């Protein structure tokens, strides 16, 4: 480039890393906390919805999670990533709520999912006909029902690993389990899920 050229290249600003935002919150910057909420609101909502199974409870758990995160952020020691710490709070909030439910819904894993349903869905095919779109929506509902029927130790692992896409290592940090324990629960959870969804897939 010629010396003294005025050529300027617009470089998009890189997002501020989570850890930097946490440091800013710890220094009293509330805007930084709002940015963290914006980043993780959707993800945390999906975890709480998957674990609790309805919008009302998921909404309250979402609020609880971020309010607890805000209160405890001053003590955050950077021993894990911010999001695994946040997901751990969300998971614990949900598990506490599940245990407090007076009459928890317990559904036998052997119970037929839907006696009327006899669906066959090629999930891998992305070009869905209207019928397949309908079937996919139905399958999605059945999936959520099947997840809610799982014992909580399987449900948490399936939600974090298969639905939210965390690695086995990340799940082990969120749930404070060993990686082999995560794999074992994942395997048994998948088998239980398959049992309930077998007639649909």
């Amino acid at each position, binding site marked *: 480039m010629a010396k003294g050229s005025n050529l300027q290249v617009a470089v998009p600003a890189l997002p501020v890393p989570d850890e930097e935002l946490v440091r800013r919150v710890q220094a009293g910057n509330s805007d930084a906390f*709002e940015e963290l909420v914006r980043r993780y609101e959707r993800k945390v*909502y999906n975890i709480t919805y998957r674990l609790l199974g309805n919008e009302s409870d998921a909404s309250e758990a979402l609020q609880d999670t971020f309010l607890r995160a805000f209160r405890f952020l001053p003590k955050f020691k950077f021993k894990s990533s911010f999001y695994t710490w946040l997901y751990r709070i969300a998971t614990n909030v949900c598990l506490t709520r599940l245990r407090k439910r007076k009459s928890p819904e317990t559904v036998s894993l052997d119970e037929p999912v839907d006696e009327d349903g006899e669906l066959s869905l090629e999930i891998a095919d992305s070009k869905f006909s209207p019928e397949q779109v309908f079937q996919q929506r139905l399958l999605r509902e059945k999936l959520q029902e099947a997840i809610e029927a799982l014992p909580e130790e399987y449900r948490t692992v399936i939600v974090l690993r298969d639905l939210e896409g965390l690695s086995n290592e990340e799940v082990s940090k969120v749930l404070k389990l060993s990686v082999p324990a995560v794999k074992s629960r994942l395997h048994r959870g998948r088998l239980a899920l398959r049992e309930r969804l077998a007639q649909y897939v």
Partner: protein
Amino acid sequence: MRKRRKSMQECRECAELLEWASACIEGDATEELRRELMIHVSSCTACARLFRSLKRVVHFCQLETGCDVPGEVHERLWIAIRQELLSEDEE
């Protein structure tokens, strides 16, 4: 991965396949194990059905992108957060 104790042809009620199927889906299985599993499922209808449906369930879960936060839920969250931040400022 648990050490294999017997060949797949000998396994009773295909119990060992259950362990291996998840390992294969996870990508944890060795090439040899994968090959053996494929040979087995090509001759065992029950295992083939189980393996196929397990893969589809896992695949469907992984395709699930989740949902956006509903408008009212989003509003309630931000009201709660702003109240919390305000009370923090006042202290």
